[in-house]
């Protein structure tokens, strides 16, 4: 009997030690070092004026890498989040539940939606992936696939005919039968020995510098390219914005 109690006690101690923690992951949008306001006019690297109206993007396939190099992969089915930021929407924070406690040195995620999920049946497209619900406007119908990053706004350099609107819809998961554009990008952000404790919530903030959307290996000029829908240039823009993400 005593033995049994001992074992039970030991078990519960071990179990307690393994109780998971929680991470609240927040994305903040900046232009250079300033937090974005939808009423402010900014100037990109090409000296083009711009005001933002919509900043939407998918964050998926999240994982955390421990100090010893092992990886904790957040349950794949629940690993799809849609950041929505406009005057109407402000959805920038997500809770990652049941994270094993420990010390983590890297946060990894995909900007966009992996190719497999892009071809799945409707049963596997819930929550952020539901194009008739939360994910509306983030999906191409005629050329099946998610829009990974949608950045829209106003600039005096965008055509007057289109009400000075610039509109960048970046997507493309690489194609189903034939290779097509692939704008899936993985971000790996080093963490400073980020500790997750059992039963506690830790806060992690990722800042996204939207100035980087327009510069990098590819110079995106609103005056030259006010709209991107489905084009080869998408991949280059994705290469730009992947560098916009940083741990704050």
């Amino acid at each position: 009997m005593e033995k049994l109690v001992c074992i039970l006690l030991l078990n519960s101690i071990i179990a307690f030690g393994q109780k998971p923690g929680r991470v609240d992951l927040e994305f903040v949008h900046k232009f250079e070092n300033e937090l974005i306001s939808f009423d402010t006019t900014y100037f990109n690297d090409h000296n083009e004026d711009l005001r933002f109206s919509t900043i939407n993007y998918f964050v998926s396939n999240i994982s955390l890498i421990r100090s010893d190099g092992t990886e904790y992969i957040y349950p794949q089915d629940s690993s799809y989040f849609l950041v929505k930021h406009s005057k109407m929407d402000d959805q920038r924070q997500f809770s990652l539940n049941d994270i094993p406690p420990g010390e983590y040195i890297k946060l990894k995620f995909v900007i966009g939606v992996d190719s497999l999920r892009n071809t799945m049946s409707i049963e596997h497209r819930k929550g952020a992936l539901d194009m008739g619900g939360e994910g509306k406007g983030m999906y191409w119908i005629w050329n099946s696939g998610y829009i990974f990053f949608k950045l829209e706004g106003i600039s005096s350099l965008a055509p007057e005919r289109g009400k000075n609107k610039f509109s960048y819809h970046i997507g493309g998961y690489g194609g189903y039968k034939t290779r097509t554009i692939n704008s899936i990008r993985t971000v790996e952000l080093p963490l400073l020995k980020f500790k997750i404790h059992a039963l506690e919530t830790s806060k992690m903030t990722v800042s996204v510098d939207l100035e980087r959307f327009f510069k990098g290996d590819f110079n995106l000029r609103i005056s030259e390219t006010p709209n991107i829908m489905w084009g080869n240039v998408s991949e280059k823009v994705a290469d730009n914005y992947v560098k916009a993400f940083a741990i704050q």
Partner: protein
Amino acid sequence: MKKRILGLAALFYLLVSSISLHRRQMELPRNFPKPYHNLEENPITKQGFDLGKTLFYDPILSSDGSISCGSCHQQWAGFTNEGHTGSHGVNSQVGLRNALPLFNLVFYDTFFWDGGVHNLDLTPLNAIENPEELNESLENILTKLNNSAYYKKRFFDLYKVEKITSEEFLKSLTQFLASMISANSRYDKYVRGEGVVLNSEEIAGMALVKKKCTPCHGGELFTDGSYRNAGVENSFRFDRGRESITLKEEDRGKYRVPTLRNLDYTSPYMHDGSMETLEEVLKHYNSEMEDQQTLDPLFKVRPSKPGLTLSDEDMHNILMFLKTLNDPEFINDRRFSED
């Protein structure tokens, strides 16, 4: 002992009958390849099929309530739009491309003339959200369905949901679409040994189709599911075919190879509906194709001029064989008709 045998026999009977019951819901033709569509994930039930059919024929799916899926996919026309070169949308708009027939869809892995969609569940959205077709958003359809006591009850009865979402809506449509199998043509009964005999012209035509129209129109689906340029006149100003999906110049003017089944019902032909009769189509393939940059190399049989080398007799026999691919049982199957 006797009891035990009886018990075993009863068990065996139950097993067999349950399998055959399952089979009856979705009979796949013996002569067809394995389906691409996952029938186990969204198994077809009578209720699901019926709900899908109601939706298919309900103009609630269009922006102004004027047209349904069934408006451009008419059963008597092999579920194409009879006599229309481009399909007909809201406000009497005409689309660029000819409505494709709807049958044997579970055997395809990509859909539409340019292959832009690759899951059957998502195919209805293409027509629904196209401004030249149903011109409606999925979100708005869900709102309309959720505001309808009639649909709320039907969806609740089937899926036990209080709120209809994309999943239940599209799954129901898929059940109807996946059920549309056309495999009872004279040709099918002939190859399955079901007591049909083909005459000498039809047999000759069959051999010609195997020889001259394969691999493109090969296999029991009479298409290899590829995208090819068949030399139909095209300025490429409005429609570049599969190039719009792959963004590759080499895909300019390539379109899905359509099936040869049920052709008697599906006139006009080709991606733009530019040919009204099968005679015209054959003549085109024989000697009238436009030699475009991406024209399929299989048409370059002789150096002077692209096209198949068919005699008048060949063409006659091919036409005779194509008729054996018509499936009047499918065209008249009441299960798929508007109630």
